[in-house]
């Protein structure tokens, strides 16, 4: 969904596992939908970790723990590896997350988040570790993600880090524009390329 992005200040949901793959974010059996029903995908985010095989709630999983909540998911390194399924980004957005923080993202999933107005924020290992510590010490602590300034701030410690995003994508996120808007406006350039490369 096209949502303008500016500054988000929120509590966080910690998921300190590494190599969280997109099969865990949304298992393949939920990929059969032919429409972009974010609620359906959001309801099944981390399905097999959220629910036991008999369908009952797994209280041990963080999404089922009322202590934690918010619009920011904080995950261990190499988040979103594996399948290219954009359904994973739809599930994250559909659940209500606007930001995912990790020290490392898989390439395709990172693009998918950006194309769905979810901001992947890459932080240092040290910042990430401290962030997990802060969240567990006080689940009500807040993090500020400032897209215009490209900074993320741990409000418990006051520590701040700058994150990277290219100017074009930043402009898109802040103004609710997507790449298709851009591409269809550039058809003459595409035709010129085709003619030149024949």
């Amino acid at each position, binding site marked *: 969904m096209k949502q303008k992005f500016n500054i988000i200040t929120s509590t966080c949901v910690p998921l*300190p*596992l*590494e*190599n969280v*793959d997109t*099969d*865990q974010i949304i*298992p*393949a*059996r939920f*990929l*059969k*939908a*032919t*429409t*972009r029903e974010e609620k359906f995908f959001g309801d099944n985010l981390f399905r*097999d970790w959220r629910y036991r*095989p008999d369908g009952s709630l797994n209280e041990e999983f963080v999404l089922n723990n009322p202590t934690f909540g918010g619009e920011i998911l904080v995950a*261990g*390194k*190499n988040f979103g*590896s*594996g*399948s*290219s*399924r*954009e*359904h994973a*980004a739809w599930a994250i957005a559909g659940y209500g997350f606007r930001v995912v923080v990790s020290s*490392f*993202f*898989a*390439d*395709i999933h990172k*693009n*998918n988040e950006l*194309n*769905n107005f979810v901001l992947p924020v890459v932080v240092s290992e040290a910042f990430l570790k401290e962030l997990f510590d802060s969240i567990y010490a006080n689940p009500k602590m807040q993090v500020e993600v400032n897209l215009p300034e490209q900074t993320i701030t741990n409000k418990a410690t006051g520590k701040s880090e700058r994150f990277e995003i*290219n*100017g*074009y*994508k930043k402009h898109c996120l802040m103004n609710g524009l*997507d*790449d*298709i808007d*851009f*591409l*269809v406006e*550039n*058809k003459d*350039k*595409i035709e010129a*390329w*085709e003619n030149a*490369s024949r």
Partner: protein
Amino acid sequence: MANTLFDKIWDAHIVQQVEDGPTQLYIDRLYCHEVTSPQAFAGMRARGLKCFRPDHIYCMPDHNTPTHDQDKPIEDPVSKTQVDTLAKNAEEFGLNHFGMMHPKNGIIHVVGPERGLTLPGMTIVCGDSHTSTHGAMGAVAFGIGTSEVEMVLASQCILQARPKTMRITIDGELGKGVTAKDMALYMMSKMTTSGATGYFVEYAGSAVRALTMEGRLTLCNLSIEMGARGGMVAPDETTFAYIKGREYAPKGEAWEKALAYWKTLKSDEDAVFDKEVRYDAADIQPMITYGTNPGMGMGITEQIPQSDGTASFEKSLNYMGFQAGESLLGKKIDYVFLGACTNGRIEDFRAFASIVKGHKKADNVIAWLVPGSWMVDAQIREEGLDKVLEEAGFAIRQPGCSACLAMNDDKIPAGKYSVSTSNRNFEGRQGPGARTLLASPLTAAAAAITGVITDPREFM
């Protein structure tokens, strides 16, 4: 200036460089399957757009297709809707479509190369991470999300950040029983599943040159499992011989012209890569995975390593029901899966048949042998491999992605062990609770006849 193979192809496809942003890259071939395309077509419809270059786009269902009774309607109504939706979208937007039971149907990453649709020098995308497979033909091929599929439908272009380049050189000769699959699992075990994230990989060295086209396709297929955007092998005589005469390959004068261009597609001798990695083929033995990501692999005679202390490692071994320090040899297994875009080609069936010939399938094993396409199926029968397999107690199913990700009925039950030639051993990948051990077709075949994890070299 000296360029890498990747640079040459990428640069030849730049429509424009967006200021402080990504590259607008022209795409020669878009492949669409039924799972990651419906929302892209719906988006096109909502925006009132037509496909910009419909003749560059090929569609086929593969993920949901059952591996039996494909001539009958799909039983699962949700799967059926998704497969039917692809057919309707292809018709509405005027795209090439090889539906279920069409002689050209199969797994999109098997069909593209075998039909000559995938050619050297092309840029190729598909809403599927294993699009990296096509790089084996000397193409720049990578997986994309559904929004990006929509971009290509609308403009035949994609906006993409230029990846860094990495060359992985594997010199030397592969030992007995060691395949392209083992090379890839070995590299992943060394580099981890994020070791090549941000990079486009070129595979080089004598061990890579010596691989057949099928082997190179397997190798490039698994590039994504190291996190790489894609993997590629410079086209050579092996590539040209493979392509010549294939249905969509250039013919006559066009062939000569194409061939002259393809011969220029290699990294210049003094080209500089952002990263260089080297491995010795002699260090690789048949591999098997013990954990829940493809980087958790080891030589089949080795022991599961000690915990690295992370919660992820403990969770992984707990899921698999294994202990650190133990050997997997002799462990009882329940299922064997031969197939997928990784190992569903003719050479994989030859390899499997070479091990099981003259033996019988173990009683405790359920084996699913799924050709990657109808073309592979036809070749299996032409070569008489079907007879060898049947005599050993194995049946051949109909083509599709099957138990690789279990979107059809081919699901491994919870808690069961599956020796699988597919590409991912993630939790629940082959069905909720399924435990997957990735291996080559040779290793899968050895397990299928003994019923336990077995070093395939014992049967060679």
